[in-house]
């Protein structure tokens, strides 16, 4: 252990998933995993997945673990993407096994 990586967590609309995933891939991140959200709250508005037939309000959580420089590269583009979309992005430090795979 003691291989430090960045853990990027991006909460974004499901509709924008393919865009966000292009951004992460282009930044050189080697992988990510997407989890779908069930409900949420932001700017005074609640949403829940089963209150909306169109699924228009669905959000997803994208987790990507990677090297600091790749994460940095992704963040710059994500900043621009989030000007057009709704979402929250956060980064923390984690330790990983098998650092060669990132």
């Amino acid at each position, binding site marked *: 252990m003691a291989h430090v990586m960045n853990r990027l967590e991006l909460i974004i609309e499901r509709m924008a998933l393919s*865009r966000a995933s*292009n951004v992460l891939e282009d930044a050189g991140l080697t992988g990510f995993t997407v989890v779908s959200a069930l409900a949420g709250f932001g700017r005074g508005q609640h*949403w829940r997945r089963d*209150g909306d*037939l*169109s699924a*228009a309000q669905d959000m997803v959580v994208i987790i990507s673990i990677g090297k600091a420089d790749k994460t940095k590269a992704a963040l710059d583009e*994500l900043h621009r993407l989030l000007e057009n979309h709704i979402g929250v992005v956060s980064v923390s430090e984690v330790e990983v096994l098998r650092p060669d795979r990132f």
Partner: protein
Amino acid sequence: MGLDLALATLLSPVVLFFVLGLMAALAKSEVAVPEAFAKGIAIYLMMAIGLKGGVEMSKTGLTLEIIMVMAAGIFLSFSLPLIAFALLRLTTKLPQIDAAAVAAHYGSISIVTFLAATQAVNFAGLDNSGHLVAVAALMEVPAIMTALLLAGRGKKKVPGSEQGDLFREVALNASVVVLVGALIIGWITGEAGMAKIEAFFVTPLQGVLCLFLLDMGLAAGRGLRQGWRSLEPTTIGFGLYMPLISASIAALFCFLLPMSAGDAALLITLAASASYIAAPAAMRLALPKAKPSIYLTLSLGVTFPFNLTIGIPLYIVVAQLVTA
């Protein structure tokens, strides 16, 4: 006749299950049709409607009259959002982007409203033809294009998106693809093919619709509970009078075109109905800053129930007048 019809509509199991869902959601009950199940049923409904229309079109073929009705539908879908947008900007405080998003919904259509109207038309003893399903499919997308123009959405590139992405995603949205696909399949296989699958796609349709409307009632109720605070009275008013305006304009076309009363009722209903599946999904993609709490609540919570209960019987009466 009109009253009879109104009563039969109001007390049909389908409408009553919508009311049940609405009341349960407003009373904060935890009843919920799982999302995956409801979406599966939505696909089933679109397949069933498309197949039915296609089979009927396999009998009539594509006549000039049908093409004229289709053109009328496309024209309505393109132009109704302009009226809607103007009215919203005049009478409400909605910002441009939200007004454009709402306008998209009222130009586009609701396939469940269409299905309910089909049944009311049959109940009223009128005939209707399969090509109205094709008209419905054709009316889904143009309104969305108009709304994007109204929102003044620039051409600046969004990171991660490819050229033409947005158009493709809007034009190939799930409901259009399944509806049109099933229509073509029904057309190709005709009555012989349908005979083998009607035990699934025709006989139980009304019952499945009850289940779906329970879910729509729940969604509408939840939307109203969350969203009514975002709606000014003038916006709610729009959700009630806009269908009547759209219906009137469509009625004019029905008067001019050679249409049966049943077909006219369906075209008027399509114009008057507001989308709550295709349009919200497209708006979220194209205009993410527009508020779903406004456009969804208005379309599903205000206009859909209005059309389901009062609108449809009215549109049938009007259709009978203009085609008499």
